[in-house]
C-alpha cells in the first residue's frame, strides 16, 4: 500500500489500478453488450439519433439462441471441457513429478535438463503441428479428442514442469529433511509433506494449463475435422465467420459463454493462484 499523503495514494495506486482494470475488463463488457444487442443496432452509424455504443435498451437472446439452435455449440463446449480437463490432469501429473525431480534430486545435468525442457516450451506450435500431424496419422487418432489430449501435453508438460520446479525450489529443504529423519521415504516425504505445501503452485499450473488447452486453436483446427468433434475456438470461427462477414452477435455470445468456465475456475482458486505466482512458502 502506498503510504503518505492522500494524493500519492490516488496518483500511484488508485488511478493506475482503475485504468488497468478498465482496460482489462472493457473487452468483456463489450462482449456482453454485443451478445445482447439486437442485429438492428449492430451496424448503426455513429451519427444516428439512437446510437448507443455502450448500452442497449432492447436486449435480446436471439444470438444465444442462434448459437445453440443453429450450431453445435453445446457439443463444442463439452468437447473443449473434456479435452482441457484430461490434458491438464496428464500434464500436471507429469509436471509435478518432473519438477520435483529437477528441483530436489541432485543428478548430473539437472540444471541443463531444466533449461532444455523450458526451451521445448518455446518451440512454436506452428512448427510442431506438422510432425505431430504425422504422428496422429500413424496412430489413427485424427478427428478424435485423443489427438488433442495427447498433443496438448507437448506444450503443457514443459510449462508445468518449469513452474513447479521453481515452486519446489522455494520450499525449504528442511521440511522434507525433517520427514526423512523421522523415517519417511523420499516418496512419502514428497506426497505427505511437499505436495500439500505446493498446492498453490499446483493449482496455478493447473489453471494456466487448463486455460491454454481451452484456448488452443491450431492443433484443434488441424487434427479435428467433423463438426461434432470441434472445440469452441475452432467451431465458432468455422461457423460464424463467413467469407468477409462476421456474425458479431453469435460470435460474441460464443466468446462470452466460452469464457465462463475459465472464469469460474479462476474465481474458485484465485487466492491459491495468486499465492502460487507470488512465491509460495515463507520459510
Amino acid at each position, binding site marked *: 500500500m502506498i503510504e503518505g499523503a492522500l494524493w500519492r495514494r490516488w496518483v500511484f495506486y488508485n488511478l493506475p489500478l482503475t485504468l488497468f482494470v478498465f482496460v482489462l475488463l472493457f473487452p468483456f463488457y463489450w462482449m456482453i453488450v454485443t451478445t445482447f444487442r439486437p*442485429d*438492428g443496432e*449492430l*451496424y*448503426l*452509424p*455513429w451519427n*444516428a439519433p439512437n446510437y448507443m455504443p455502450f448500452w442497449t435498451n432492447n436486449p435480446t437472446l436471439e444470438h444465444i439462441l442462434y448459437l445453440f439452435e443453429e450450431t453445435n455449440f453445446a457439443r463444442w463446449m463439452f468437447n473443449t471441457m473434456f479435452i482441457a480437463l484430461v490434458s491438464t490432469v496428464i500434464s500436471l501429473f507429469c509436471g509435478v513429478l518432473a519438477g520435483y525431480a529437477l528441483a530436489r534430486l541432485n543428478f548430473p545435468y539437472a540444471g541443463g535438463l531444466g533449461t532444455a525442457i523450458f526451451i521445448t516450451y518455446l518451440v512454436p506450435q*506452428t512448427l510442431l*503441428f*506438422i*510432425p505431430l*500431424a*504425422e504422428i*496422429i*496419422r*500413424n*496412430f*489413427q487418432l*485424427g478427428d478424435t479428442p485423443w489427438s488433442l489430449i495427447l498433443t496438448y501435453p507437448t506444450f503443457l508438460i514443459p510449462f508445468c514442469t518449469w513452474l513447479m520446479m521453481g515452486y519446489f525450489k522455494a520450499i525449504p529443504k528442511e521440511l522434507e529433511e525433517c520427514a526423512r529423519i523421522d523415517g519417511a521415504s523420499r516418496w512419502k516425504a514428497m506426497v505427505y509433506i511437499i505436495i500439500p505445501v505446493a498446492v498453490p503452485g499446483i493449482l496455478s499450473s493447473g489453471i494456466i494449463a487448463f486455460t491454454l488447452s481451452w484456448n488452443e486453436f*491450431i492443433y484443434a*483446427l*488441424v487434427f479435428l*475435422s*467433423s*463438426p461434432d468433434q470441434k472445440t469452441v475456438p*475452432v467451431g465458432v*470461427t*468455422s*461457423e460464424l*465467420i*463467413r*467469407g*468477409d*462477414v*462476421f456474425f458479431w452477435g453469435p460470435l460474441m455470445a460464443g466468446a462470452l459463454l466460452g469464457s465462463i468456465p475459465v472464469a469460474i475456475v479462476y474465481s474458485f482458486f484465485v487466492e491459491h493462484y495468486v499465492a502460487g505466482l507470488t512465491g509460495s512458502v515463507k520459510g
Partner: protein
Amino acid sequence: MAKTKRRSVLKLAGGAAAASMGGMAAILATGRTPAFAQQRTVHWLKWVDFVPATDTLLKREMMPEAEKALGVKMNLETVNGNDLQPRITAGIQSGAGADLIMSFNSYTHLYANSVVDVSAIAEEVGKREGGIFPYAKAICSNGKIYMGMPWAVIGGMIAWRKSWFEEIGLTKFPDTWDGYREAAKKLKAKGRPFGQTLGHTFGDAPGFSYPYLWSWGGKEVDASGKVVLNSKETLESIKFMQGLWKDGMDEGGLAWDDTNNNRAFLSQTISATLNGASIYIETLRKPDQYKTEKGLPMNKDILHAPLPKGPAGQFGFHLLQSNMLMKYSKNQDAAKEFLKWIHTEANYRKFFESQKGFATPCTAKWESDKLWDVDPVMTPYKVAARLGQAIGNAGPPDAKAQEVLSKYIITDMYAKAVQGMPAEDAMKWAEAELKKVYV
C-alpha cells in the same frame, strides 16, 4: 493378502512394455492400426460459404444425393477461408487429410507436386460448357496438368451508394481513376469517404492493389519472369495513390481486414468500397436491419461497378476457387467420380443458383444464364471470370507469383507510400522484395 514384490512388479511391467513396443513397432511399420477398416469415403474440405444457404444445400441435400448416386460416403467439412492453408500443409506433410481441398488463387501452383492431375474432368467440363476462361485455366493449369478443378470466382466489384453519388451530381460510377479521385474527394468532404483496405488480408487488399497497378501499365514481371516492377508506370500509380489516399479515402483503411469495409459500408461511414457481393447480399438478407439515413432499405441504394480504367486499361483480380485432389488421398477414384458428379449441369446449377450471383462459374456457358437477369444489381458480377487477370502479370501465376501475393508485397508498396515513404523508395523496396522471390 499376498505380498507383491517390487522385483516381480518390475518384471511384469517390463514384459508388458516389451510386448506393447513390439506391437507398436508393427503398427508403425504398417502405418495403420490392425483394425483399420478400408472405407470408400470422400472428405471434401472447403471454406465456410458466405452464403449460408449454399452450405445447407450441400450438407443436407447434395451430399446425401452424391452418396446415393456414387455409393460413397461423403464427408463435407467447412472451415474459415484463412484456415485452409494450414490444413493443406498439415495434410501434405503428414500424408493424410481431406481428399479434396478447396484452393484459393494460386495455391494450386504452390502445391503442384502434391496434387493429382484432373485434366480429364476439367477438359470434359470445359468442352461441354463453352470452354474454361483463361483466368481459371492459368490458375488451375500449369500447361501440363490441371492441379485443381475450377470451381468458381468470387468477384470483386465496387459497391457504391446511389443516393450519395447523386448528391454530388453523379448517376453512374466513375470509370477512370481521375473521376474516381474526384468523386472520392467530394464525398470525403461530406464525411463519406471511399473505403479501401491496404492491410494484410487475402481478398480485398490484393483485389484492389493488383488491378490498380496493372491499369497504370505496371507489371510484376515480364513474360520471361524478369522483375520489371521498377517502371515509370508503377511510379505514376504510386504517386497518384498518395494523393488519392489523402484526398478521398478513409485513412483508417491501412489497418482493415476483409471484414472492416463491410462493416464501414453497412454502418454508412463510407460511400464506396471494393468487395464481393457480400455487402449487398447481407442487406437483402436483413432489409429491416440495414436502412439508409432516410429510413429506406439500404439494398435499394446499392449498385456495383468494376474498378475504373487507367492508362493501360481496366482490370480485375478476383478470388478464384478450385478443388485440389490430393496425391496422398486413398480415395482418388471416388473423389474423381464426385468431381464429375458435382460438375454435371444439373448438380452445379443447384450450387450456382443458391449463390444468387455471389459466385461466378469458370466456364463460358453460365455467363448467359438467366440468373444474371433476376437482379440487375448483381449483373456486373457475371463477367468476373471472363475479365479476371491472374497474378504474376505478365508471367504465369505460378508459385513465385503466389509467394509475392502471400507476402503482400504489391499491397505493401502502396501502403508504405501512403504512410509517407517517397514513391521511388516504395517502388524500389517492392522491386527488391520481388527479386528475392524471382531469383
